[in-house]
């Protein structure tokens, strides 16, 4: 590394030029809140994950626990706190898996082109010719439900979309003049990928990560809700909804609370991604007509 080029001014970061908005602050705070709970949950939760604290099932809010009890008399509040861990961790792992596969294959297809691109793209297209839920159901139906199957399946299903985004980015940036200049200089594939293409794909990839993460939470909780995802006695928000749906008619909120928590997570994430992409939105010709 040369010394004189290391000047104090920051690198042109993907976050440069972003102005904070109140929605972004709000969404960020919600995410931060859940993150802290996920990290320190076991020290905060008053009861154990599967601990039955009361003989009354579906106890209303305030009675027998801060948020009432569930269908087995477990503490909803404690399970909620344990659940955020499962929910976030599983979503993170699946998203990372989908990125590991999607980005690697996508950029490889864009750079290597030729038969590799054709073969991989065709396979991905075939997988995308299915609704993703259906694909997951078929695999789970065949392999049974276990965390490993779940995480791998959802990760692979999500990776098709990551593949498409990465491949398009690789193709678009790969034909730009500065990449051509590097190619003309004689740079190898690795340099072109890591120094020319990747730094310029960061912003869209970060946004894609956010979207996939959101989708992954929705997807996993949907499967849990169908009874095909995380299995008892583990606490998972989607599973908690499924367990306690019956309580809805008995006046219990034990199903609604975790569902609302999932929504708070995904909505916040979506708002944050939208804020991150705000630079692309500008005025339109139509607005100018009225001025």
């Amino acid at each position: 590394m040369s010394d004189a080029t290391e000047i104090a001014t920051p690198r042109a970061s993907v976050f440069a030029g972003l102005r904070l908005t109140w929605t972004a602050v709000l969404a960020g705070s919600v995410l931060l809140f859940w993150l802290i709970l996920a990290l320190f949950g076991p020290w905060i939760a008053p009861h154990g994950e599967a601990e039955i604290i009361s003989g009354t099932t579906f106890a209303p809010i305030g009675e027998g626990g801060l948020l009432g009890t569930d269908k087995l008399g477990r503490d909803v509040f404690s399970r909620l706190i344990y659940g955020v861990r499962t929910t976030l961790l599983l979503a993170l792992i699946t998203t990372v898996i989908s990125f590991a596969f999607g980005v690697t294959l996508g950029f490889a297809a864009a750079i290597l082109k030729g038969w590799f691109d054709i073969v991989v793209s065709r396979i991905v297209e075939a997988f995308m010719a299915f609704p993703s839920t259906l694909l997951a159901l078929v695999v789970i139906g065949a392999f049974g439900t276990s965390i490993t199957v779940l995480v791998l399946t959802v990760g692979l299903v999500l990776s098709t979309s990551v593949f498409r985004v990465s491949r398009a980015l690789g193709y678009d940036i790969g034909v730009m003049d500065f990449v051509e200049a590097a190619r003309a200089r004689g740079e190898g594939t690795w340099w072109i990928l890591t120094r020319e293409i990747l730094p310029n794909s960061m912003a869209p990839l970060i946004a894609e990560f956010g979207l996939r993460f959101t989708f992954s939470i929705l997807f996993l909780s949907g499967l849990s809700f169908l009874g095909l995802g995380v299995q008892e006695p583990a606490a998972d928000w989607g599973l908690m909804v499924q367990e306690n749906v019956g309580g809805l008619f008995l006046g219990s909120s034990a199903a609604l609370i975790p569902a609302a928590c999932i929504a708070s997570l995904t909505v916040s994430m979506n708002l944050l991604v939208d804020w991150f992409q705000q630079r692309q939105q500008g005025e339109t010709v139509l607005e100018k007509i009225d001025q």
Partner: protein
Amino acid sequence: MSDILTIKNLRVEGRPPGGAYVPIVKGVSLNVAKGEVLALIGESGSGKSTISLASMGFARPGCRIAGGEIWLNGRDIMKLSPQDRHALRGDEVSYVAQSAAASFNPALRIGKQVIEAPLWHGAGDAATLTATAVDLYRKLDLPNPDSVGEKFPHQVSGGQLQRLMAAMAMSCGPDLLILDEPTTALDVTTQIEVLKAFKDIIRDQGTAAIYVTHDLAVVAQVADRILVLKNGEMVEEGPTAQILHDPQHEYTRMLMDAVRPAPHLVDHVDASAAQAPVISARNITAGYGALTILSDVSVDVPAASVVGVIGESGCGKSTLARVVAGLTPLREGEIRLDGKVAAPSVKDRPRDSLKDCQIVFQMADTALNPRQRIGDILGRPLEFYQGLKGRARVEKVGDLLELVDLPRSFATRFPGELSGGQKQRINLARALAADPKVILCDEVTSALDTVVAAGVIELLKSLKDKLGVAYMFISHDLSTVASFADEVVVLYAGQVVEKGPSKVVFSPPFHPYTKLLLSSVPEMRQGWLEGVADTGEAKAASAGSVVIGAKGCPFANRCTHAIVGTCDVTPPPVRTLPGELEIACHLPIEEMP
């Protein structure tokens, strides 16, 4: 008052994405009388388009009219309600944009779009308006005036589309016509007919017009008065003849000086004593996918000399540069760099062969990685080719910056912080970092303003003298090539039609295509347009377009000299003329223009 438009103290502000409003037009006043053409000239970013749009009371997205009065037909349109102001557009004032291809809605038939404005503003029913439009097509010399309206935009050629846009603008019988660089996107050979059509239609209808352009030679043909702009302020205003021949302001004079004389008026560089070629491309055939673009092209670039490559867009100039650089592998033929045979693909070339031949691209901004500092952009080739590291590398980067007349401190900047001209200098410096024997310059000045481009050309010249580097200088701008190149290669539809020392190429006898190119270059002389527009050459040239892979002579469909039965079926022979001139044409030498 006979003024159609009077603008007083106009101020317009613009806002960069996420930023605050900054002034772009700073108190400009102007007026246009009935039947008069006022030209706005200036460099890009000087506010020409913004002012012209403001005369319709319109500001582009991200801009706003911040102050001033805009009097159109005797009323201040800024005092009208937005609805009333909007109602004037396409009725009293209409607009012709730079690119017709982009300005016609691809999903609607042309005729519908042409009569849309008057139909909406209640100027008549569809049948009458269509009849008027057909009259306009006829006046504009469009082929098949009766049926062209039925077509979709993609079914019509670029030059015709540009004229159809004139028809679209005139169909509402406007009092004021705004033309924003209406011929800039066209090739010189098609520009003439379009320019003539615009001029005639304006004269014919007695419309007042604002003509925006950066091309002074074009202005000389169409304008009655000229207003020179710089950074959103008026520099000078006066009748065309006075501005062209007796500019008062220093900036105007600088603009005039940057304009190069027509190719045949240039003092050509004398061919230097023959040097060993650094690039020797022999019988190159190349293309993309199933498409063959270049066929049987041979070009030599002698050491320390400049070889100009000219031709219309789409003729394969860039492809030639890419083939030499190894970016687009050739299919047949051979390339020698500094005497040694070079592999077709850049991947298979050794570093010292790569080092000798560097390429600089047309678009200065896209050629620089926006996420690397200038220091790293220039440092990488130093490290890659010469193994320079640490302090030595930093020193050399500074030297390179000085070599291209930029301050050493630029090393810490990102490309986004530089102007277009500065970026192009960085591109050049990156090529120089390899210490090459030859640089392939692909339209390096085409995207730059005249004054800035002149600076880059001067830099190229001085570098050549200082470092003894050779250039393959690709450009569609004949004047620049003529003033700069030792030798010239004329490319048409992927074939070499003429080549030789610059002096010989730019004097008769010509290949008919070279002749067409030369006579199409606009001259600063007023009245030049009328002289050339009605020649059979200009008409024939605008009738056809470049066809790659023709059976006989590729130019046959646009050539006034074409010998039917010969030119369209048999490829032309290469004739060698005195003075090392080669022309590929069936015509006997005496009959060449």
